[in-house]
């Protein structure tokens, strides 16, 4: 059975919660879940209850669990994109590449590009344009997408798209590829 390590606020290990942790954390990601609180209440493998936990902490854990579940699905969706996705933060550091991007940019370092500056991957002119677009993104929450070039070989239009949080604040940007060739196969053709 997968266990979650429970760590007290002072850093001491409180114990290990089995999968039946009180807060219904059911996804696999909870093995990385570091719980910083004073008291927790867990069920052991026999279903017995342990120490008590404040309700607000319980709610925080539920919320975090839900976020992890959402992240799992969103990551899987972006990973499933057949076009490269490279995400940068506000310091222009690459924070995420989907598998297609890792493969496409393998010659430049592939997955090792995560954590590097996007400016290391482009020439001076491209970097200048990226900065120009970035400044435009910062000017207004309505400025969110710029067409950058057309790739005739793959019939793709490529954009830089702003990434914003729920308040509309800029948190980063990414390169988006859109294929313009229409689908030719039949509907729901499984083969």
């Amino acid at each position: 059975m997968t266990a979650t390590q429970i760590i007290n606020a002072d850093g001491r290990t409180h114990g290990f919660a089995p999968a039946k942790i009180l807060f219904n954390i059911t996804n696999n990601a909870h093995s990385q879940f570091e719980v910083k609180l004073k008291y927790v209440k867990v069920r052991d493998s026999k279903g017995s209850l342990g120490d008590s936990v404040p309700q607000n902490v319980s709610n925080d854990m539920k919320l975090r669990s839900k976020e992890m579940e959402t992240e799992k699905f969103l990551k899987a969706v972006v990973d499933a994109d057949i076009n490269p996705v490279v995400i940068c933060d506000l310091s222009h550091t690459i924070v995420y590449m989907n598998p297609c991007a890792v493969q496409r940019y393998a010659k430049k370092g592939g997955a090792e590009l995560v954590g590097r500056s996007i400016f290391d991957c482009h020439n001076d002119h491209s970097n200048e344009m990226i900065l120009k677009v970035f400044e435009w993104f910062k000017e207004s929450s309505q400025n969110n997408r710029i067409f950058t070039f057309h790739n005739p070989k793959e019939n793709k239009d490529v954009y830089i798209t702003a990434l914003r949080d729920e308040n509309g604040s800029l948190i980063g940007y990414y390169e988006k590829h859109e294929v313009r060739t229409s689908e030719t196969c039949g509907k729901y053709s499984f083969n």
Partner: protein
Amino acid sequence: MEILPYLKGLVDARKSPVVICDAESRIVFMNKFAVGKYEKYGGEKMIGQLLMNYCSIEDYSKVSMLVEWFKESKDNNIVFSHHESDTNGDVYIVAIRDQNDEFIGFASAHEQRTPETSEPYHVD
């Protein structure tokens, strides 16, 4: 590294609906565009509901067959669903898999086919 805000920002930035369902066909996420487009069905309130509540029997039957196909092999990952003439978009249903390639759900994906007409880097 907190990656969730970036992923959510990315999916929310799409100008087409993205609806994500888990392996039991329960809606677990809708991007902002989908919430607006399906407002008449409840918008954000659809999250947590079964997809079958919003489909015809015929459509849900197709979805059920598709889910079984996704489960059959980790190589079964995308199916063309239909073309939307009003947006000139091709609509697909894609499998969602975890890092072990286990099937955990599926999502809609819209691909716009109208070529871009604006100039590159036209920020003004």
